[in-house]
Each structure stands twice: as structure tokens, then as C-alpha cells.
């Protein structure tokens, strides 16, 4: 190790590869985030429902995704789903879908916890003036709950960015996969992986910082 000469010039030469990878990472994150949010909201509501036919499947879904490795979920969706459904998804779509479904399970818990954190009296008061359950949810409960959900939700987004690296296993050209390919061309793993780590730090740290800042700002206000 001592005396190793760094050649970051090689990385600079291939900067486009990193930008390309970062773009794919961003697309994966954005796609999974969109899927995860919608799924999470629906499943979180279903999990809080008093109707067993909604609650039980939702709970099973969350437990299933939380108790199995994300990587296993991704390869399952990529290799097993086509056999069962006859629909062959591309690797990018598979990974986006898989990460989205995975995030959905975690977002569902955040939504549910946020809704549960609102005092029961709020729902009672809304119903007492004649609101339907969904009206009370939309106008009274969710607006209050969302604020409490945002910090954990942002943290989960940071985790999601990290999980996109799993896409490399299914040959999705995100940052890690591009880096691996680059190393086979340049034989410069140290420089490439260091740059890779810094690239992720540059993406994720602002997200974590935003979450902490929001949390503090809101605690200060209330």
C-alpha cells in the first residue's frame, strides 16, 4: 500500500461513464420511489383497516418484504416472475419494480405509524361533524400525519439510493455496474471505487442532511 501512486486522471478521462451511471441510479431511485409511495400509502391504509380482507394481505406483504433480502426479491422478480406470468421484464424494469415494491413495504410502515400517531380525538371530531372516514383521512388526519412522516420518509429514500447498487447483479448499468466495467478496462479499482464511494456520498449526504434539518425545524416550531 505504501507508495501507491494514485491516478485519478484515469477516472477523469472516463467521467462520462460515471455521469451515465449516476443518471441510471437516479432513474432507478425515482421510479422505485414513485412505485413505493403509491404502494406504501395503499398498503399502509389497508394495514390500518378494520376489515380483515384488507388488513391481512397488507400485513403479509409488509412482513414478506421486510423478512427477505432485497437482493433475493430482485432476482426472484427477474427470474421467477416471467415463469409464473409469462411476461419477461427487462432488467431495468425488474429492478425498478422490485425496489419499488420493497420500498412500498417500508413506506407502508411509515404511513401507518404516522397515521397512528395522530390522536384518536381528531378522527372522532371529524366524524362528529358528519365526515366520512376517507374525508377525515384526507382533510384532517393525513395533513397532520404527513409532516411527521417526512423525516423517516427521506431517510428511507437515502436507503433506496444505496439499494440501487443491487441492480448491478442484474446487469443494470447503474453506478456500481459501470464502475466494475470500467475497472476491467483500466485496472484501476482503487481510484474507481473511491470515486464511486464519493459519488454516492455526494448524492446521499444532502438527503440525510435535509431530513435532519426538517426534523429540527419542525421540532423548533411545535
Amino acid at each position, binding site marked *: 500500500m505504501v507508495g501507491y501512486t494514485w491516478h485519478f486522471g484515469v477516472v477523469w478521462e472516463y467521467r462520462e461513464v460515471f455521469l451515465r451511471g449516476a443518471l441510471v441510479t437516479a432513474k432507478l431511485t425515482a421510479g422505485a420511489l414513485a412505485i413505493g409511495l403509491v404502494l406504501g400509502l395503499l398498503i399502509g391504509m389497508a394495514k390500518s383497516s378494520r376489515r380483515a380482507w384488507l388488513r391481512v394481505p397488507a400485513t403479509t406483504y409488509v412482513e414478506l418484504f421486510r423478512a427477505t433480502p432485497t437482493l433475493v426479491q430482485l432476482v426472484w422478480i427477474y427470474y421467477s416472475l416471467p415463469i409464473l406470468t409469462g411476461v419477461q421484464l427487462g432488467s431495468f424494469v425488474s429492478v425498478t419494480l422490485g425496489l419499488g415494491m420493497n420500498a412500498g413495504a417500508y413506506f407502508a410502515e411509515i404511513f401507518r405509524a404516522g397515521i397512528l400517531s395522530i390522536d384518536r380525538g381528531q378522527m*372522532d*371530531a371529524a*366524524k362528529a*361533524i358528519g*365526515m*366520512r372516514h376517507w374525508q377525515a383521512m384526507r382533510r*384532517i388526519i393525513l395533513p*397532520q400525519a404527513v409532516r411527521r412522516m417526512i423525516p423517516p420518509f427521506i431517510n428511507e429514500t437515502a436507503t433506496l439510493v444505496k439499494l440501487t447498487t443491487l441492480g448491478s447483479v442484474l446487469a443494470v448499468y447503474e453506478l456500481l455496474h459501470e464502475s466494475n466495467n470500467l475497472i476491467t478496462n483500466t485496472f484501476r479499482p482503487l481510484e474507481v471505487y473511491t470515486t464511486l464511494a464519493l459519488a454516492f456520498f455526494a448524492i446521499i449526504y444532502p438527503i440525510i442532511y435535509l431530513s435532519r434539518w426538517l426534523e429540527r425545524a419542525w421540532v423548533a416550531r411545535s
Partner: protein
Amino acid sequence: MIRVVDLHKWFGQHHVLRGIDLEVQRGEVLVIIGPSGSGKSTLLKCLNFLEEYERGAVYFEDRLVGYRDLKGRRVRDHEANVARVRAEIGMVFQSFNLFPHKTVLENVIEGPLVVKRQSRAAAVEVATALLRKVGLEEKLHAYPSRLSGGQQQRAAIARALAMQPKVMLFDEPTSALDPELVGEVLDVMKKLAGEGMTMLVVTHEMGFAREVADRVLMMDEGVVIEVGPPDQIFRAPKEARTAAFLSKVLH
């Protein structure tokens, strides 16, 4: 206007209401007293189905509340029907339960806008008048967290009144208030009673009961101990349990 027949309610194994019968006439003020844990608040919440009851019946203007008949079997009523009944029954809670993310005015117009689908202008006009009536005309655009407990409770009363309810339920409206703020809330309630509002009031304020109630109902351990005009209940209770309770709260 309200008729309760052999009402039973369980919380798990705990039998909270053990066969309540009750009738309230239009314009009547009924004050419900009794030791804590006697089921007073639960009874009130069964009237607008915020609590489900398991046996017996609650009728609001001769309509069964919360259930309907399906081929001779009693099943839960559609949510829309339950909501419609609730819209005609105002409720005021011990902990106010104002919506903290809305201003006082927004709290009061919420029901008329969302449930009654009134225009904003009409709702604001009614709300402003109600808030003036409860003495909060200066606080229209304040958030609940900026108000004292007494002001919050008066805003909550205005919120309930904005739906133009046929009856008002008060669930220990002054129990969470500092002693010096109790009067201002009771004054609003007295004014309301004076205007002929039908009211059911669960309270420990015996002075209010004596002065405003048409009838006082004493409850203990999920049953009605006795009902009568305030004079009789306070001067000459028929039941030993009523006398014992009153001697404790009246010192």
C-alpha cells in the same frame, strides 16, 4: 328526539353499559352525572355511534342509529347513513379536539364546506356570526395552539353549532380546563340552553346542573340509578348511591 332502549356496550370483557333506557325531548337539557368510569362518556358516544353498541337500540328522531335491517338481521348501517345522522348531532369533547392545522375560522367552516357542501362565503358568514356569539371574533385567524383552553372549547362549540345540529352532546366540556376558565364555557352553554337547544351534558359541574338542567340523570357502573328534576336529585335523592355521590362532590 332521542330514545335509548336497553343499551349494552362491552369493551372486551368489560361490560360498560348494562341496559340503559332513556328518552330526551326536543328542547330539553339533560345533565348526566356520576362517578368516573360509570359509563357516562361511553353512553354519549353511543348516541352518535362514535362507539358501537352491541345490544339494544339508539333512536334519533325515530331512526335507528348505526344499524339497519337486512333480511330480519341487524347489520351495521352504511357509513354514509351514519355520517348523515352524526351531521345532525353536535358533539363537544373534553379535550376540545380542534384541528390543529387549521385556524379557528377554518375549523368552524370545515363541516359546512365538506359535509354540507355550502359555499365558502355562506359558511364564513355563519361561522363568523357563531364565533362572535362565543366571544372569539378577535381570534378568527388564530391557530388553536395560540388559544387558551377556554377559548379552544368555545371554538369547538362553534364548530359543532356550524352544522346546525338538532341536539348537542357535551362530554365533560370543562374537565380539562383551568378553574378560572370554566365559567366562560359554561356561560356559552347556558346561553345555548336558553335558546332552546336540546342538550345532553356529561359534567361534574353541579352548579350548572342545578341551574340549567331540566332533568338530571345519575349513572353508576353502567346503569341509570335515577332520573329527576335537579331540585329533587340535589335536595332529596331517592337512591342511597346518588346521595353518597353528591355528598362527595358537593363537599
